[in-house]
């Protein structure tokens, strides 16, 4: 409309109830032009992206956390409220609110629309998933709906090609007028009577404008008859988790072998290209083997996230929470904690951040405390290495790999201890405090869209590599430094590392760690392993590579099998079930809980558990003749 509007991007915001397909719509509108950051002052994820309308306007689109009401009950919902009301100082108030609704389930969304009208911002109702609604025979009179609500409405099918064309054209028209049509905000947190009145009004509008066939979605009810069955449902959930673990262990193998071979070749190449000496050792043993031993786990992490995102898009995650609620509840956890905890499998950081879906602060804190115990991907390096060195590669029961079963057992131990710790935390810290409610909408099942799943996997892979590229790399350089300096004196006979700082620290710790069967090489790896668990393997590699020469570097596993007893190996596995998580996880815990105390509690209890578990394991195994 004006010259200013042409050059300055407009700010539009997507708002909607959970499961409205809001994120799918966001992906469809912005494609890969997305940016994920944090809102100023809080740690809620801020997803924004640029979109270009057919008329050539640039719009900055923001995907707000899903909510049923502006009456915020969690940090996520507070962000939505403050953003919509323009209360963020650093953020411009949105020029247009796009309220996204699932066309097959309008009831709660229309009540939200009625509430949003009071905000006084230009508003557009987007009836998403219209394709599914039409297929089910749901007939929506768009003009009537729009007239009754007093809000313009448009249909969209975010996951279909061309499904957002009408919406794009409409955005063009609205962009021209949005600057002028704001009215003063009159929003106040609605009382129960207002909620009732608004829902009655929404129901009246639905009765007038929407014709629904008598039978609801039969596919979802047929699937739920099995998947939510009290017994069969739990069995299937366990089976899904078991397949996930097996897949991560076996499918990733060929790719991992390829990556290992690639980095070995690179290391050998650098060895021949560089003159003997410090630089050669730094590049080969510090940089290449360090980065390589982390990147090699990318395939497993990709497969893990593929599973998690597929289950989420399928609509199964909410069912898993339903099935697990009572079991988690027994341990003092909320059914909703299942989703953050499952995300913690890959990395505790997204998991801890995902605890924001839990609106009760104490439940959230408990979940945060135990989330690091669930962490899976960062332990894969350590577990894989030790398992493949000490556990025979055999098939048992005719179909399962023994190594996979051991892996499953280790994670089962992690999960069981997470439940135990949370029950204990509940008992110790807030025995008297109330149990919050579990209320969760179960969305209809939907076929996941490959594009949106792949985009999610890509984002996570980038996050992992970013960490591998920065934190882990700098740790590796530090380890290499500790292992290489000071240089051995002239005429020294032993391996160079015996004279280094690392050996000094490792030996100093030996009195404490010999009780759990750890030798000084393990101690050297433990130090960086506390900063970031996945570094420990690389550190072991560095320690043994430098000690034993290049021949051993290629086969850390073989080196371990020679140097460690089985009891020691098992003790290390036990240690890593509990060992304190990486420094960035601790930083996130501090940020999310807003206190150093909870960070220290997490670190302390994990360290204590790790030592105790390793102690018991080592002595049991030694007694049994390991």
């Amino acid at each position, binding site marked *: 409309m004006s010259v200013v509007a042409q050059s300055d991007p407009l700010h539009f915001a997507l708002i909607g109830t959970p499961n409205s397909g809001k994120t799918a719509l966001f992906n469809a509108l912005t494609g890969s032009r997305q940016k994920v950051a944090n809102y100023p002052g809080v740690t809620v994820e801020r997803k924004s992206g640029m979109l270009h309308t057919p008329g050539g306007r640039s719009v900055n689109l923001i995907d707000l956390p899903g909510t049923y009401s502006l*009456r915020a009950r969690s940090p996520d919902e507070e962000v939505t409220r403050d953003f919509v009301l323009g209360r963020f100082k650093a953020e411009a108030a949105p020029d247009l609110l796009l309220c996204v609704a699932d066309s097959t389930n309008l009831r709660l969304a229309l009540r939200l629309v009625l509430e949003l009208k009071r905000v006084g911002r230009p508003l557009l109702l987007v009836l998403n998933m219209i394709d599914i609604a039409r297929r089910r025979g749901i007939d929506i009179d768009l003009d009537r709906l729009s007239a009754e609500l007093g809000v313009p409405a448009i249909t969209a099918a975010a996951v279909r090609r061309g499904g957002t064309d009408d919406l794009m054209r409409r955005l063009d028209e609205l962009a021209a007028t949005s600057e002028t049509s704001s009215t003063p905000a009159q929003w106040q947190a609605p009382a129960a009577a207002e909620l009732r009145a608004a829902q009655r009004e929404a*129901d009246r509008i639905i009765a007038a404008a929407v014709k629904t066939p008598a039978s609801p979605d039969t596919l*979802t009810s047929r699937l739920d008859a099995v998947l939510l069955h009290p017994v069969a449902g739990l069995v299937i959930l366990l089976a899904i988790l078991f397949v996930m673990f097996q897949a991560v262990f076996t499918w990733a193998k060929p790719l991992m072998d390829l990556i290992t071979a690639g980095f070995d070749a690179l290391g050998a190449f650098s060895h021949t290209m560089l003159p003997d000496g410090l630089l050669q050792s730094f590049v080969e043993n510090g940089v290449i083997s360090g980065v390589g031993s982390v990147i090699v786990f990318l395939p497993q992490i990709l497969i893990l996230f593929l599973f998690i995102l597929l289950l989420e898009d399928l609509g199964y995650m909410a069912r898993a929470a339903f099935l697990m*609620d009572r079991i988690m509840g027994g341990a003092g956890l909320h*059914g909703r904690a299942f989703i953050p905890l499952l995300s913690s499998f890959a990395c505790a950081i997204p998991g801890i951040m995902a605890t924001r879906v839990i609106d009760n602060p104490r439940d959230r804190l408990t979940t945060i405390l135990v989330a690091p115990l669930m962490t899976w991907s960062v332990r894969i390096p350590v577990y894989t290495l030790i398992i493949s060195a000490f556990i025979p590669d055999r098939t048992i029961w005719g179909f399962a790999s023994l190594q996979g079963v051991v892996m499953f057992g280790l994670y089962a131990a992690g999960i069981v201890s997470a439940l135990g710790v949370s029950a204990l935390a509940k008992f110790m810290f807030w025995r008297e405090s*109330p149990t919050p*409610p579990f*209320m969760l909408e179960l969305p209809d099942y939907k076929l996941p869209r490959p594009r949106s799943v792949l985009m999610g996997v890509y984002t996570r892979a980038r996050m992992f590599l970013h960490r591998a590229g920065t934190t882990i790399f700098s740790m590796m350089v530090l380890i290499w430094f500790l292992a290489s300096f000071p240089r051995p004196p002239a005429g020294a006979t032993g391996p160079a590392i015996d004279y280094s700082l690392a050996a000094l620290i490792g030996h100093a710790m030996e009195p404490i760690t010999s009780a759990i069967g750890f030798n000084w090489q393990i101690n050297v790896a433990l130090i960086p392993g506390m900063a970031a668990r996945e570094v420990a393997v690389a550190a072991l590699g560095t320690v043994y590579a430098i000690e034993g020469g290049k021949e051993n570097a290629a086969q850390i596993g073989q080196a371990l099998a020679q140097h460690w007893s089985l009891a020691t190996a098992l003790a290390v596995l036990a240690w890593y079930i509990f060992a304190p998580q990486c420094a960035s996880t601790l930083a996130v815990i501090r940020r999310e809980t807003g206190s150093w105390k909870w960070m220290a509690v997490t670190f302390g209890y994990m360290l204590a558990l790790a030592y105790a578990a390793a102690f018991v394991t080592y002595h049991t195994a030694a007694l049994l003749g390991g």
Partner: protein
Amino acid sequence: MALGLAHRGFRGHITGIAVGGDTSDLPAGELERRLLELGFTEGAEVEILHEGLFGRDPIAVRVNDATVAIRRREAMAILVS
């Protein structure tokens, strides 16, 4: 009667929301508003579709066209007939 006492397969409609003293650990007004926001309003049709394994808890309730999971404890506040 309270929805929290009903068995799987129960069909009826909501006659009122009445948060008793022991229903939930949430303040009474807060629980009422949360239930309303999830669509548990007077007149809505409900059906209990599924129950959990332990103590037949939680329950999955069809509320008009949506399905909501809720614990029996909170469902005690939903009066149905």
